[in-house]
């Protein structure tokens, strides 16, 4: 029964991902696009939860949904008037974009579909389970499979980004 429930759950999440992704890039109202993006990101977080990565799902919601999308919405509100719609796409542009995306879909989809590995690999129950202690020691350790240096680099990047954002966007 559990597996049936999880399949239903999976179907809902995947449907949300696909539908909202497509809506994100096809709607002509920019604020709606941001909202659909938010839904897509939520669905992605749901996928992470399904795969037992609760922490990652939480980060996804907090940073992506809570941070980035809010930032995007703010900037949309700053740069456009309510009710603005982008002009209709020219057919040439649409054909070009469709060609690119369909071509990549075809090539990569065929690559996935043709590999039997992809259809015979199933999720294994994790033996150790997810452990926050492990995560913490990985982020702040210096040994093998430990990421103190990237952690620090990202922190510096974020600091630089904050300063840069302030400098670029402030009123002169």
């Amino acid at each position, binding site marked *: 029964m559990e597996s049936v429930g999880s399949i239903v759950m999976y179907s809902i999440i995947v449907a949300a991902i*696909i539908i909202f*992704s497509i809506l994100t*890039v096809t709607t002509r109202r920019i604020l709606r696009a941001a909202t659909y993006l938010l839904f897509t990101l939520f669905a992605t977080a749901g996928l992470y939860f399904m795969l037992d990565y609760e922490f990652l799902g939480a980060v996804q919601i907090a940073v992506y949904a809570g941070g980035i999308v809010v930032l995007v919405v703010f900037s*949309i509100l700053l*740069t456009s008037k309510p009710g603005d719609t982008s002009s209709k796409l020219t057919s040439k542009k649409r054909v070009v974009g469709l060609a690119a995306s369909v071509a990549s879909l075809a090539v990569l989809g065929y690559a996935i579909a043709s590999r039997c590995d992809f259809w015979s690999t*199933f999720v*294994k129950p994790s033996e150790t389970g997810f452990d926050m202690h492990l995560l913490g020691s990985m982020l702040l350790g210096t040994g093998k499979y430990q990421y103190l240096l990237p952690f620090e680099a*990202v922190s510096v990047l974020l600091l630089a*980004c904050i300063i840069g954002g302030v400098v670029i966007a402030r009123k002169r």
Partner: protein
Amino acid sequence: MEKLPIALYIIPSLIMFCCGVYGFITRKNMIAILISLELMLNSVDINFVVFNRFLYPGQLEGMMFTLFAIAIAAAETALAIAIIVNIFRAVKNIDIRDLNKMKF
């Protein structure tokens, strides 16, 4: 849950990626382009996580990559939006077709 092969997780990610490509190429509003970019990044994140979970369930490398990718995406978005706001202030427009003053 045991019935679902890895391909069923990768294919939505692929579709999401293709949507991002389509949006990136066709949209004219810079923020819309940024949103498409986020879509693409997100699909890659899903791939990292899925492969980590399916192939190396005892390790967390894919998740770590996703974490860092999210952090960097946040930084990139913040910076991009700062630039967009600044451009908007300068030319009152963020349509990418009109931003060609410095082209030639």
